[in-house]
C-alpha cells in the first residue's frame, strides 16, 4: 500500500466524518479536514509506528478574502505540512476556519517546533491557537494593529522624508 493510501486509511478509519475531502494537485496529497479534529489526527499520526510521521515541516495559512466561492467554505485556511522522514513522504492537512471565529487547537504539546510557527501565523494572519503557552506577536512591532497578511490589510509604502515634504509627514499605519 502506498503512503498516500495508508494515511487516508488511518484518518478515514479513525475519524471518518472529519475527513471532508482530498485532492492531489501536482502529486501532492492534501486532506481537507474538520478543524476540530486536527489535534487528535496529528496525535494519531505521530503515534502510528508504521507511518512514522514525526516531522512537522511547517504551519501556514491562507486568506481567501475576495474569492467568493472559497470564502463560502471558510475564509481562512490553516495548512499543516507533515513529513515522514523514514518514508520520505510529505502530505498536507488543510482546515477551513470561519471569519468570525478563527480558532484552532494548538499543536505545541505534540511538536515543540510548532511554537514559533503558530506564533507567526497568529501575528500575521490573526488565527488563534487555543492552548498555545505563549501566543504573542513575533515579527511585527508591538504597536502595529491588525494582521498584515490578511488580504484586506492595505499594502502601503512609506514616503521617505526629504526637505520638500518635511512639513507634510507621511502617513504610517499603526
Amino acid at each position, binding site marked *: 500500500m502506498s503512503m498516500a493510501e495508508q494515511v487516508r486509511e488511518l484518518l478515514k478509519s479513525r475519524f471518518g466524518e472529519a475527513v471532508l475531502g482530498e485532492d492531489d*494537485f*501536482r502529486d*501532492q496529497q*492534501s486532506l481537507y479536514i474538520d478543524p476540530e479534529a486536527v489535534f487528535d489526527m496529528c496525535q494519531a499520526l505521530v503515534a502510528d509506528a508504521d507511518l512514522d510521521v*514525526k*516531522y*512537522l*515541516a*511547517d504551519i*501556514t*495559512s*491562507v*486568506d*481567501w478574502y475576495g*474569492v467568493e466561492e*472559497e470564502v463560502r467554505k471558510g475564509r481562512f*485556511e490553516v*495548512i499543516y*505540512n507533515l513529513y515522514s*522522514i523514514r518514508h*520520505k513522504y*510529505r502530505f*498536507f492537512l488543510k482546515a477551513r476556519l470561519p471569519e468570525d471565529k478563527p480558532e484552532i487547537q494548538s499543536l505545541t504539546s505534540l*511538536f*515543540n*517546533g*510548532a*511554537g*514559533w*510557527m503558530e506564533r*507567526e501565523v497568529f501575528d*500575521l494572519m490573526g488565527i488563534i491557537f487555543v492552548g498555545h503557552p505563549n501566543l504573542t*506577536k*513575533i*515579527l*511585527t*512591532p508591538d504597536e502595529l494593529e491588525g494582521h*498584515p*497578511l490578511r*488580504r484586506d*490589510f492595505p*499594502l502601503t509604502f512609506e514616503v521617505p522624508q526629504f526637505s520638500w515634504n518635511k512639513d507634510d509627514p507621511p502617513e504610517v499605519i499603526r
Partner: protein
Amino acid sequence: MAQQKTLEINMGPQHPSTHGVLRVKLELDGETVVKAEPVVGYLHTGIEKTMESKLYYKALPCTDRMDYLSPMSNNLAYCLAVEKLMDIEVPEKVKWARVCLAELTRLNSHLVWLGTHALDLGAMSMLLYTFREREQIIDIYEACGGQRMMTSYIRIGGLAHELPRDFDKRVREIIKTFPEKMHDYEDLLTLNQIFINRTKDVAVISAEDAINWSLSGPMLRGSGVKHDIRKANPYSGYENFDFEIPVGEKGDAYDRYKQRLEEMRQSLRICQQAIDGMPEGPYRAHVPGVVLPPKEDVLHKMESMIFHFKIITEGFTSPRGQVYQAIEAPKGELGFFISSDGTNRPNRVRVRPPSFINLASLPALVEGRLLADVVCAIGTIDIVLGEVDR
C-alpha cells in the same frame, strides 16, 4: 536579607555575535542560563506580503533578499515552486547549471558561516581566509547575473542569460584549489584545543528532539538523522548525481562543524560532476506565454516580442491550486508554498524559512549551560536574520 537570585540581561540586538539584529533575553543564575528567549522581528519587511502583490515574474527579486548569503538557492526554490504550479519542464542543461550554482551557493554560505562562527569563538584569522575563497564564488555570480549578491539569475523556466563563457574554467579553478584551502581550515580549527573546548558537548540536541523541534539541514543531520531532501525527494535532477550525506553522532556544535565541512567537500564533488556532464541546449524552456522568450528572439521575432510584452505587462494566469516545493538550502529545508486563486498574482506566498525554525530551538540548546555557550549556540545554528524576519 532579601537577595535577588537571578539576573535578567539582554544580549543584542546590537551584539556582534548575534549575526545581525537578534535579541536574546537571558535569565542568569550566576553564569548559568536559566531561561533564554530569542526575540526576532527587527528586520521584518513583509516580503511575503510584497510577493503577493506582484506578478509571478516580478516577485523573484524579493527572494534574494531573504537569505542574502545563498541567493541562488532562494531563486531556485521559488522558481521550482512556480514551475510546479505551471507544470513547466525545464531543459536538461538548465537543471545541471542550477545544480552547479546551488552547490556553489552552499559553499558560499558555509564559508561565511565558518568564518563568522570561528570569529565568535575567538579565532580571528579564519574570517580572512574564508572571505578570500568566497570572493571567487561571488565573482562567478557577478559573471552570471551581473550582481555579486542579489543575483536573481535563476528565472522561471530557466536562467536569465546564457552561462558566462568562462563559467566552466572558473568553476574548475575552484574545484582544483579548494580542497587545499580546506586543509588549511582544518589545520586551524579541527584539532585546535581551544576550538574543541568551546564546541565539544556544547549546544547538544538529540535526534528525537531535533525532529520534534522541526530542525532541518546540518542541524538535523548533525544529530545523526540521515535526511537530505536532495536524496529523499530529488528536485532539479539531483538524482543523477553521486554524493554522500554526512551525519554527525552526538549533535553538538563540533559535530555540526565537521558536518558542514564534509558537506562542502560533497558540494565540490557535485560541482565537478555538473561541470563534466553539462549537456548542450537552450538556457530557457520554450513555453510561449509563460516563460519569457530569449532576448535575442525578442529583438528579431514578432511573436517573441509580443509574448515578452504580454508577460511583462500582465503576466500569466495560473491554475487554481496550492503547491509546495522544498529544497535543501545551505541552512536547511527551504520551502515555498504558493497558493493561487487563478489570477496572475499569487494569493499567498509562504516561505518556510530554515533559519527561523532552527532558531526557535535556541532555548533547548542553551538552557542550563554557561553564558559563553550562547554565543557558540547562535553561531552553530547558522542564522541569517534577513531570512528569520523576512
